[in-house]
């Protein structure tokens, strides 16, 4: 398992190479890439981060995912700093013997990354700056997962 909290961009090909070094014994690989959505007039997105806590938190999220599904290796990259529209923000790669395990775990990890890992997004427009607020709908996804585990 590998978690990379970084200002640097990632290259999918290289990330997959590193991922495959960890294991080749998976029949299923699910990948999710989150990017800065090119909203109208958006100049850039600033992502603030608490790196030490992010590392711990993401590790704990992946451990919970491993307890729920049968997973091989996991690779997560989350960027912070100043990003432009269409820039990469986050990458989650999950190998498993079973496609539904790799896909469900990917969705689970993304849902928790979004609302419980210490990152904060600010949208920067020419005339204003807006800290994005946590969405009720994102929190509801966490409740759904917690309901499922009861």
């Amino acid at each position: 398992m590998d978690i990379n909290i970084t200002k640097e961009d990632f290259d999918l090909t290289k990330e997959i190479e590193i991922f495959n070094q960890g294991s080749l014994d998976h029949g299923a690989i699910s990948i999710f890439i989150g990017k800065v959505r090119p909203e109208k007039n958006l100049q850039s997105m600033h992502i603030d981060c608490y790196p030490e806590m992010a590392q711990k938190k993401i590790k704990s999220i992946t451990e919970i995912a491993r307890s729920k599904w049968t997973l091989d290796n996991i690779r997560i990259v989350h960027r912070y700093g100043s990003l432009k529209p269409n820039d990469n923000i986050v990458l989650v790669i999950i190998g498993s013997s079973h496609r539904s395990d790799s896909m469900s775990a990917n969705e689970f990890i993304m849902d928790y990354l979004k609302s419980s890992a210490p990152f904060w997004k600010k949208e920067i427009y020419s005339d204003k700056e807006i800290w994005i607020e946590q969405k009720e709908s994102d929190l509801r996804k966490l409740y759904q997962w917690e309901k499922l585990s009861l």
Partner: protein
Amino acid sequence: MKLKYFAWIAEIIDKREESLEIPSEIETIGQLVNYLSSIDETYKKAFEKRKNIKFAVNQVLVNENELISKADEIAFFPPMTGG
């Protein structure tokens, strides 16, 4: 005590982190927030919307009643919006 601030809280306080001597009678995060708000208008403004602020002690999310000590790293931040 090491204090860290993130997102708009860091912007209001205009610092990302600082080390402060905290009176020994301050035992919980909630008391710390009240104390900081009492000594300076900037903290008061930053911590105004208390419901929108989350706390971590040594990189672990906690609630207002969490006990804190001198050696701790305390972080203040709004709800997370990463991913």
